[in-house]
């Protein structure tokens, strides 16, 4: 090599890459961009390297890589390079942050979770609660509608309903509503029942109904108690709480 190109030196070749082409000799960053611009896959990068000012960044960057190729950037077969380590570190931080975020912010929002399954204690009498939606006709007669009448399975629909309904615990991952008020509650329930009623009507499940009544049922020790939460008027499309 040195015999064929006497203008090159061993020290120079050790310091940077040389490209001898058509009587011209290019070194370092200039050699790299000359090659990159002529290789189809690298040509977009090569063109970028010819933009005005690119040499101001490119030459020091090349110098740094060349100077550190036997120290910081050196690796044995199979060992991660510094670039690999940097990208892997980003992935590690992102994955662990996402895994911890659900718990830190107490949220249930796939894939964020605070993993609350089977943690909640029950009252000493083992009370369980549920929602019921009843359709009320012009004569005041009511019948229970499956919450899935709108086309969403009950397991999901009642969680959606609970998100709108709200929990008394402001940090509850499903129904937490900090600073909730009766007016805000009615507004949310109005929006929920508008969507629910439109979907149920579209499926022919509201024939003859004038109002929808939301109830909470408490069941404990074989006894059931009901509480009327409020009524959604299908004409005015508004939800109002029952007077207490």
């Amino acid at each position, binding site marked *: 090599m040195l015999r064929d190109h006497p203008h090159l030196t061993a020290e120079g070749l050790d310091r940077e890459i040389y490209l001898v082409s058509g009587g011209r000799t290019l070194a370092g960053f200039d050699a790299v961009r000359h090659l990159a611009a002529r290789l189809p896959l690298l040509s977009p990068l090569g063109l970028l390297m010819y933009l005005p000012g690119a040499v101001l960044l490119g030459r020091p960057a090349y110098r740094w890589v060349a100077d550190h190729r036997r120290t910081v950037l050196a690796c044995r077969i199979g060992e991660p390079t510094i670039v690999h380590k940097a990208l892997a570190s980003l*992935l590690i931080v992102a994955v662990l942050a996402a895994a911890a975020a659900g718990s830190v912010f107490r949220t249930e929002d796939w894939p964020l979770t605070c993993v609350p399954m089977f943690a909640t204690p029950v009252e000493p009498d083992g009370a369980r609660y549920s929602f019921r939606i009843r359709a009320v006709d012009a004569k005041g007669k009511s019948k229970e509608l499956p919450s899935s009448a709108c086309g969403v399975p009950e397991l999901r629909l009642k969680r959606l309903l609970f*998100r709108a309904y709200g929990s008394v615990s402001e940090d509850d991952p499903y*129904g937490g509503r900090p600073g909730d008020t009766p007016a805000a509650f009615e507004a949310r329930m109005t929006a929920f029942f508008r969507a629910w009623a439109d979907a149920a009507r579209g499926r022919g499940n509201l024939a003859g109904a004038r109002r929808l009544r939301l109830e909470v049922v408490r069941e404990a020790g074989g006894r059931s108690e009901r509480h009327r939460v409020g009524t959604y008027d299908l004409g005015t499309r508004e939800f109002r709480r029952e007077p207490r």
Partner: protein
Amino acid sequence: MTALSRFWFATSRRYSMGIFRIILGAWFLLDFAGFLPALDEIARRPAALMSPCAGLRWSGLSQADPAALVALLRPAAWVLAAAATLGAGTRFALLALALVNAILRSLHNSWGYVGHASILPAFTLFILAFSPGAADWSLDALLGWLAARLRGAARPLLDRLAGRPAAVWPVHLVLMLVAVVYFAAGCEKIREGGRSWLDGRTLQWYLEGRAHSKRLGDSTQFFSARRDTPTDRLFRDPWGLDKVCNSAPATATGKRVAGSRALCAVLSWATLFLECGFFLVFFLPRRLQYVLFLLLAAFHGGIGHMMRIDFGGYVVLYLCAVDWNAVVRALDSFLPGVGRARESS
């Protein structure tokens, strides 16, 4: 800093992300057999009631038509899962599968419900897609070996398939991910249940399956109330509805265990120990790590048996930490040459 760097980026021939790719891919194929056909039902739900989850919002697809997404991505999920398992276009298949799976699961979880069992396998697919060594034991590696052989430069086949020693960060990240979620679950039990969890009463109640009553509608959930709620917050109902709770069906074994409060207390403490103590996996010698994995597999098996809740996807994740190269070496007695080939890599 050096210790941290060594923890994540030391190289080892102990693990094989290629073999783990095959196992996880096979699990996804099995899981898809139940999950993907069920997506038909999502396409028929009213869009107005959809509540896009974080995964869907992050993907920028929260406004997209669920039916169109399902129609487009479901066939792709099958093809990509098969390609990732076999290792055909491995990197692309893994990354595309991770994205497609995340979008489909996000759709499934955009109706108020959170499917916890699908979260960790979904994250793990992303980790695997970027893992060094994920393309070992693949069709790609086999084709690479054939091409090299045609050029007359082939290494031994098994050496080529098994790949090189690789950085341990994917294995440690999967285990750390599991540890974070387990720890969160343990903390939640202490936070929510407190003494009621520690004395076994909460677990006893759930094992009895008394919440699993169709009379209250859907039998897999109910709501609980906080009876000490201040009166100014009781404007919705007189009891103070507080939480969505999961329930489980009563099984014969579950009822037998629930018959003893002492046993429930022991199991409650054991659950806390396993969930909060999983971090110890990084400090345990290999054999004790395997003991911990077996205990956790038994834990999830017990939950599956007593409560019919499937967390098999979590158990699959422990398999990333198995010394598969030792297994391959052990195969030497059945397939002469296998171990030698691996040793020379």
